[in-house]
């Protein structure tokens, strides 16, 4: 059972390596002194966004009517992008913090 599973895994990894250009990526956004940097990102469905909160304050990355990613002080939060579209997001606690994600199919 185990050897078979590793074989499958190897095959899968091999395929992923070949298909590298379209592999899902993680896009990092820094949160520092109440600013998302970069404020605008472009990604594709299947990518993840990782917000790295450098502030000693709690933030969020909140899409209106959508995802709400908590970003504890000095910690990170991630979001898997599941649908294409153009999304504005803010911090619920500091609504003047603004960011934008364009998700391509």
């Amino acid at each position, binding site marked *: 059972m185990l050897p078979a599973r590793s074989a499958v895994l190897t095959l899968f990894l091999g395929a992923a390596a070949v298909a590298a250009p379209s592999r899902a990526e993680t896009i990092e956004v820094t949160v520092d*002194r*109440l*600013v998302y940097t970069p404020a605008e990102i472009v990604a594709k469905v299947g990518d993840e966004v990782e917000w790295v909160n450098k*502030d*000693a*304050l*709690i933030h969020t990355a909140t899409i209106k009517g959508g995802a709400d990613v908590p970003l504890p*002080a000095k910690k990170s939060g991630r979001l898997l992008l599941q649908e294409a579209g153009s999304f504005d997001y803010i911090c619920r*606690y*500091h*609504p*003047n*913090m603004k960011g934008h994600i364009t998700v391509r199919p």
Partner: protein
Amino acid sequence: MTIRLTTAAAAIALIFTANGALGADKPTDPQIAHIAYTAGVLDIEAAKQAIATSKNKAVVEFAETMVRDHEAVNSQALDLVKKLNVTPEDNDTSKALSQAAETKRQELAKLSGAEFDKAYVEHEVAYHKQVNGALETLLIPAAQNGELKSLLETGLKLFQGHQQHAEHVATELK
């Protein structure tokens, strides 16, 4: 409002006169640390009054953010003064700020409902404006220690955010 703003102006003027008498033209780091910390504590107290009094969701959420953020910044400030072995020094500016806050607290205690919400949020706009002005023009330029200066700069960014947030809530209340 008039009373508070006058007191605030007097508080800032005191920074000059007090130090002028000592032959310097700006507050020292221990005084700056005390002023910044006091300003935070006063805003936390005001927020707690709002949380206990207000029934408005936007106002309560704003006040909760004030408590959360100012406690976080003040805890950083305490860590820093400990690390730098600086003892915050009470001064006339801190005293005047505390006195103005107490006057405001009593004033707000007489209000309730929409009247309270409006008065509290308008005060928050004015208070952050005033503190940000003092940070920008006096406290940050006067700070000698690099880490203290950097913490004040972070504080300024945060409090500018609070000011905008308060302005937004004030517009919603109209």
